[in-house]
């Protein structure tokens, strides 16, 4: 690769700094031996100890993981089917229907889900309503990823399977599914990441009884940004990074197999 001119590298460096310095500050302060996010005093793991002793926080974490797991599994199943349908039958209205929740402002989706759950379904807000809400906004992401994978593939591969004696179900099981699997896994990881980070929609649909990590963090910083918040944010960041890295790795193997 050609060497980039110095000014371009400086500009790139500044952009990355703008993106990542705030995150680095949070990580740094989570190890700071001081109650205040003011100056560096010394290294400590105390805030992580405090965090893991905080029952409310642990419960919120458990809720978050449960919601993320269940909603992303359901969204992966439905989104994969939607992606397949968009690709195979190409109805002009389907992409619009599937992708609209992705583009919709979160606050709008949150409010309308709240009204729908209470007024129409007469549902008591709780884990179930949050899971349902998260499924609605995740399906579109999975569907888009799966469809992109299918769009890059040679259609005659599927015809070849039929031609060589596989019925439609065998074709799906032995050819289509293995080929879209990287996209399905990437979609799942994407949905999981979106769910575990979500604040706005969760805020509207969780009700009073249920808290998730983002809700818990928000309620704590109403008072002050404590080092404990830094600690939990750092852990959440770490989890997200791992998921994003895994998803992009899937995406890469998916480029390779697509040819």
């Amino acid at each position: 690769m050609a060497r980039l001119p110095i000014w371009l590298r400086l500009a790139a460096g500044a952009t990355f700094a703008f993106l990542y310095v705030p995150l680095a500050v949070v990580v740094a302060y989570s190890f700071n031996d001081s109650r205040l996010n003011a100056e560096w005093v010394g290294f400590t793991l105390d805030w992580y100890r405090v965090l893991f002793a905080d029952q409310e926080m642990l419960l919120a974490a458990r809720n978050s993981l449960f919601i993320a797991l269940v909603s992303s599994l359901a969204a992966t199943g439905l989104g994969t089917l939607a992606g397949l349908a968009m690709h195979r039958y190409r109805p002009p209205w389907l992409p619009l229907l599937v992708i609209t929740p992705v583009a919709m402002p979160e606050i709008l989706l949150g409010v309308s889900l709240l009204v729908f759950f209470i007024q129409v379904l007469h549902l008591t807000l709780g884990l179930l309503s949050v899971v349902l809400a998260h499924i609605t906004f995740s399906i579109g992401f999975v569907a888009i990823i799966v469809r992109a994978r299918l769009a890059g593939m040679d259609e005659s591969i599927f015809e070849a399977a039929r031609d060589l004696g596989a019925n439609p179900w065998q074709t799906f099981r032995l050819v289509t599914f293995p080929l879209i699997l990287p996209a399905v896994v990437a979609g799942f990881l994407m949905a999981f990441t979106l769910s575990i980070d979500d604040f706005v929609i969760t805020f509207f649909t969780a009700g009073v009884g249920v808290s998730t990590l983002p809700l818990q963090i928000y309620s704590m910083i109403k008072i002050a940004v404590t080092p404990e918040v830094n600690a939990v944010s750092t852990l959440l960041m770490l989890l997200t990074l791992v998921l994003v890295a895994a998803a992009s790795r899937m995406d890469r193997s998916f480029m390779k197999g697509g040819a």
Partner: protein
Amino acid sequence: MALLELHDVTRRFGDFEAVKDVSFAVESGEFFTLLGPSGCGKTTILRMVAGFDRPDGGRILLDGRDLAATPPEKRPIHTVFQSYALFPHLSVGRNVAFPLRMAGLPEGEIRRRVGETLEQVHLAELADHYPHEISGGQKQRVALARGLVNRPRLLLLDEPLGALDLKLREEMQLELIKLQREVGVTFVFVTHAQNEALALSHRIAVMNRGRIEQLDVPSRIYGFPQNRFVADFIGNCNLLEARVVDRRDGELGLEAEGLGEIRAPATDRPGSTGVLALRPEQVRIHAGGDGENDQDNRFPGTVRDFLYVGDVTTYQVVLDNGFRLSALRANDAPGRARFFEIGDRVTVSWARQAGHYVPD
């Protein structure tokens, strides 16, 4: 009874008739080719025979049985796709084993047949490789092996050599002929390359705009085109617009546009108009004034251009009356690349028995 029969098969896409009332029969063991320019309907026919598409009218029979209600996986017909369509997530061996697995053969039998077939296409050592690890020519062989491994009644080949470079293509042509003879499976081959069709086929159906223009053995397709399209599409051809003025002694007297009266083998009656199809290799070119048989059709002219391709050179000659003709001459003189240069005065001539008059 013919193995495959098409009766008045028609396929429309909206207002466009891709295939119009096409009928033909393919005999068992035959190498049959559908030849035509892109968009002529040949691939649509192949897809209907394979079962990926349905005719809007007419019937397709295999061994006398109508295929209309049979899905692709139930037809004893396999396809070699233009893109090869190998399964990218399966090794070469597993690709070839796929149709046998679907047929439910026992594992030992599958292993034996896969080994045998890979041997036949010289790929035994690549069984564990994946499609993205092998070359285009090797993919082509895998696709062939996969199509032939469980001995279909019919193998359809959709421009299978189109993606290969020239040298490899010629190699594969010879191998296809050999393979087809060895396994005895009936081939229906689709191509737009006329030389490929002539080299490979027992019979050729030349297609244009959804119809068959001529169905015959290669030598007759080349030597006796039935109409202007076939004459023009197959090989290079001089097309001389002409009108028949008389017929005697098994010969036609033609009034050819720009040439005056010439003689040609008799194929039609006086009064008709059409073209005389004259192959460049039938036209002799010699230095101006050299004596030749007076019985031939002879015209003086000037070399305008030439196309040197190594073994032969095709000369464009402008006759003194302004008419242009292509003449081909083998570069067979030792120590000489070609015989004539641009601007040379020459005489072109052809035997009265040469050429083929095609009435409109």
